[in-house]
């Protein structure tokens, strides 16, 4: 992966969030403030604007800038949590130009740790961690047994399943926890938006691969080193 792929990931994520924003808000109306879709859309709109000013930036800088933008633009829990996830990812990358699947795994792990440091949530609390943690785990297992492409596909599937699995859970973190048993029976909006980001990651990786095949480019040194 490289800066172009990260940029594409954020762009696809923005598009997916935009098309699902009403759904996210609908989910949030049941157990929150009915603003998750609005907040995520506002955040990604600002991220896209920021990206357009960052020509030539490396992938780490892109993610860090996206995170800072999120923190400053987005209110509620989504701003600090997604902002931290992106900033941690960017800082884990540092100034590297190209990176391979193993580094991506470390980056997602850093994001999860950042989110858990801020939110103190564990799997089963009915939060974005319920999509992020299984997505990360599936990606790790996928890399061990198959290709990068199959690993991102499995990560997306696991994150989606994780989001759906929040339905029977009683929220133990966030505003939804105020509802107690009444939070049961609703899918967590944060886990759902996280699953959308995994779907966007898969899209971006597959698109990059397709482009390379078309151009018949050799894989980068960074990726060879990683493998």
């Amino acid at each position, binding site marked *: 992966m490289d800066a172009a792929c990260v940029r594409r990931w954020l762009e696809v994520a923005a598009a997916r969030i935009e098309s699902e924003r009403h759904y996210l808000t609908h989910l949030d109306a049941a157990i929150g403030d009915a603003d998750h879709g609005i907040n995520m859309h506002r955040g990604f709109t600002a991220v896209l604007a920021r990206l357009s000013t960052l020509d030539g930036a490396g992938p780490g800088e892109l993610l860090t800038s996206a995170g800072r933008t999120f923190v400053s633009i987005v209110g509620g829990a989504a701003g*600090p*949590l997604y902002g931290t996830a992106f900033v941690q990812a960017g800082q884990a990358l540092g100034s590297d130009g190209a990176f391979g699947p193993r580094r991506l795994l470390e980056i997602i792990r850093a994001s999860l740790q950042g989110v858990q*440091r*801020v939110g*103190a949530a564990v799997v089963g609390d009915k939060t974005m961690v319920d999509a992020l943690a299984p997505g990360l785990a599936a990606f790790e297992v996928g890399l061990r047994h198959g290709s990068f492409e199959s690993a991102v596909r499995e990560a997306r599937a696991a994150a989606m399943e994780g989001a759906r699995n929040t339905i029977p859970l009683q929220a133990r973190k*966030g505003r939804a926890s*105020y509802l107690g*048993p009444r939070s049961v029976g609703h899918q967590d909006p944060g886990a759902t938006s996280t699953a959308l980001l995994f779907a966007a990651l898969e899209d971006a990786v597959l698109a990059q691969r397709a482009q390379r095949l078309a151009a018949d480019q050799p894989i980068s040194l960074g990726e060879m080193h990683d493998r």
Partner: protein
Amino acid sequence: MTAEPNMIQSVGRAARILKALGSEQARLGVTELAERLGLAKATVYGLLRTLEAHQFVEQDIETGKYRLGPALLQLGNAFLDNHELRARSLLWAESLASRAREAVHVGVLYGPNVLIVHHVFRPDDSVQILEVGASIPWHACALGKAMVAFLEPSQRKELLDGGLPRLTGQTLTDPEALVQELDRIVREGVAIEDQEAIVGEAGIAAPLFDHRGAVVGGIALAGPVEHLLPGGAPAGDLLAAVKESARGLSRELGAGRLSLPGAGA
């Protein structure tokens, strides 16, 4: 549940059934309830039928399982209506919300938790969910810290020695740090919470006192951290608004001027 003198066993069992149904995601059948409570199915069935006759539970026609019934809502509302502090706080809470343009919570301490007994929405037409009935660990919210700071030392110690679960990365879970925080609250008469219960949410609370000078509740602004704590510190006018509301309401509850914190300051 040990049988204590003057306790009616079947009433205790009925209460346990209600609590089980109130804490469960799915509706529960007779067999599940019997297993969970360690009782004979016939006993549980009899209790359920009795509770159903009073509409405390109802049976789902399709599945035959039981869930909580509508009479509990009426009782819950009656509890709130009869709550003296809540009744007296309505106007004060409303005026604090419109003055600060933020949501207001009024809460009381039940064990280690703050029970929200009144909630005025932030007056900005946004969608908000009613948080009356929410139960928040005392150490994680401004209301809880404001109340516990003014408890008797023995009560304060008991709560500090109890569980202090972490709700966010910012929750104070170290008893010594909390003691310092509580002492600061006693000096300043106001408690601040910076995303200690929910990421992105903050609170500013002051305690409420009765005629004996005992803390009976608290009133708080609750809202986005960037509104309440812009730049990391509470906006001065919000602090003043909360303290003034708490003093006014405490006076109405019979507290004398001298028993109020910060009265001499």
